[in-house]
């Protein structure tokens, strides 16, 4: 076997604080796939919340320390499409005033991948030995779908899991209503969008709603438990690692 692929985990702020089990599942999964995983401990957040609200100067300062932190990583794997998008699409522009940093950012952008893309594109794996019994449905998070143009990899990986029946979610490509600070700036509008999304989710009869973004999972998961739904919102990594509880 060739030398092991080495990847640094960018856990993201929400992943670190609210969904550590996703990170754990991801580490176990990647190790099973032969990846050497490390975790640069100085990391905090990619700065997307600052950027999206228009605080670009502050976002750039966060970006500057993040690119340095991951400068030597062979690959960077991110469990959230939006954060991967931030690094890949926005970092170079935010740091263009500093040529040295800009070059590092450009290189980091090339080495960074959202989890499903990393598995399919970098590792070249389309089928993972794992099992899960029942129907699942998949929500396309906006940044992964429209920002990074990815809709196939997560579906391919889900279909490859033994026992999984993937049911297409009506309006899978529509926003869940999270939108970062949008969710608390206009909570009623955000919730109205969410309600339509969840009605579609429930119409599929799926046991689990899978997504590849901590923001969407927080929004949709929070909506599902609030309405007492039996559908569970889980991250792709949890299904692939066989670590979905209940």
């Amino acid at each position, binding site marked *: 076997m060739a030398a092991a692929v080495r990847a640094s985990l960018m856990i993201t702020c929400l992943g670190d604080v609210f969904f*550590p089990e996703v990170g754990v599942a991801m580490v176990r999964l990647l190790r099973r796939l032969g990846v050497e995983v490390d*975790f640069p401990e100085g990391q905090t957040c990619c700065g997307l919340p600052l950027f999206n609200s*228009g605080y670009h100067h502050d976002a750039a300062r966060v970006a500057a320390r993040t690119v340095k932190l991951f400068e030597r990583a062979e690959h960077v794997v991110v469990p959230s499409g939006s954060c991967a998008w931030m690094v890949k699409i926005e970092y170079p522009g935010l740091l263009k005033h500093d040529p040295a940093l800009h070059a590092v950012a450009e290189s980091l952008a090339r080495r960074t991948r959202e989890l499903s893309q990393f598995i399919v594109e970098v590792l070249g794996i389309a089928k993972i030995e794992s099992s899960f019994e029942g129907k699942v449905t998949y929500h396309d998070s906006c940044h992964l779908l*429209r920002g990074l143009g990815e809709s196939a990899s997560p579906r391919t990986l889900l279909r490859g899991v033994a026992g999984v029946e993937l049911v297409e979610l009506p309006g899978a490509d*529509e926003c869940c209503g999270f*939108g970062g600070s949008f969710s608390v700036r*206009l909570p009623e509008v955000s919730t109205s*969008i969410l309600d339509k999304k969840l009605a579609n989710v429930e119409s599929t009869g799926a046991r689990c709603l899978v997504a590849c973004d901590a923001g969407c999972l927080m929004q949709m998961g929070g909506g599902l438990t609030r309405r007492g739904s039996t559908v569970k919102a889980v991250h792709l990594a949890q299904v692939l690692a066989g670590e979905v509880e209940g």
Partner: protein
Amino acid sequence: MSDAALRTPFPQRAGAALKDAFLQEALTIATTKFIDLRKEAFAGFPQGEALRDRARAIKEATLQHLHVHLERLADNVERLGGHVHWATTAEEAREMVLRICRDRGVRMAVKSKSMATEEIDLNEALEHAGVVPVETDLGEYIIQLAREKPSHIIAPAIHKTKGQVAELFSRELGGEFPADPEVLTAVARRALREKFLQADMGITGANFAVADTGTVVLVTNEGNGRMVTSLPRIHVALMGVEKVIPSMSDLVVFLAILARSATGQKLSSYTTLVRGPRRAGELEGPEEFHLILLDNGRSRQIASTLREALYCLRCGACLNVCPVYRQIGGHAYGYTYPGPIGILLTAMLKGNESVRDLAHASSLCGACKDVCPVRIDIPRMLVELREHLDREKIAPWTERVAFKTLGRLLRSPAAFRLSAAAARWLQKPFVREGRLRALPLVFGKWTRTRDLPPVAARTFRERWEELR
């Protein structure tokens, strides 16, 4: 929308729309239908993607020499015997129309749907000057009778039921009309046919204006655009300066994607090309043709943040897919142009102050950019607009302080860790069955309708040790 309505803050306007059960149903049905029609139209049109790129390149190329194309357009219109007027502001544009009305003794003007005339509040000005403006697009006619404003760029009356329209027509036109769209359309046909034949002036916008030939192009489905441009003795066309395109070869590129994006049609029922007043030997057409070129804040953006918004074709596709528009409809935005593109156009025409709240009326999902026939990067411009709000200190100071603090926190791993630990301690009284269901302060905006996961007993960072 009236100033009084605008004094209600945007979140409340949006909230009211959410509680309007009919509006909610109408919005879902209409936007879903438009989305499906558009999707179908492009699915059977493989060259569509390349045409969208080309259309975008044409808009950009035109903008890079905008003054040249405008001059050429004006020269050609004048050569054909038309009159060209240059309006820097909405007020100037209104005054020009009123002056023509005064000079020519105009008492009634029929109008085909034009967002530009909405933008300058032309109807109010005409009424004030004693000229009766009659909207002739069925949707516009309905909302004019109801004394409302359009709620969608291409379907102005989607917020009204057929029952409401029947009641409105019965009251305003005298009669007992059933709630049947077919019958109501026939009623409007009769009422408006009379107006077309009586009116002294026809007022239109322009979907495009071809510089090479001096042609103003109108796209309609009802045929009112044809009536308005051919029956009254005077035709006045009002257009934003960005509507000019160089040639007929460019025009056909836009025609191929405009209707597909708006209604899913290959072409709208009528595309009308108007070149000045009627020619010698022609039995019909206006004896006088006026073209008013409107700036109204547009030129300021040629070299600025909102440049791409000047590519907009006003097809309405971005409204239909916008999750926010789909919840609140057009009126809640409070200005002439609703939806995601509307936020940008409002900032362009009314200044950044006016979009302090509206700039955040987007989850930045990017669906608008995806369907825009000329691929306007609306989410990017919204983010840049937000950046201006911060820099120009238009955003509330509390928000600015909060985000600066967040910025500092995210630059320090120690502070970040400490905050997580503090939150874990502070959340204790609020955790129920492993969830946060009711939090105070700003967090309550989340937990009023959604659960929040608590800060984990051990964060990932704390678990990393054992994973090593």
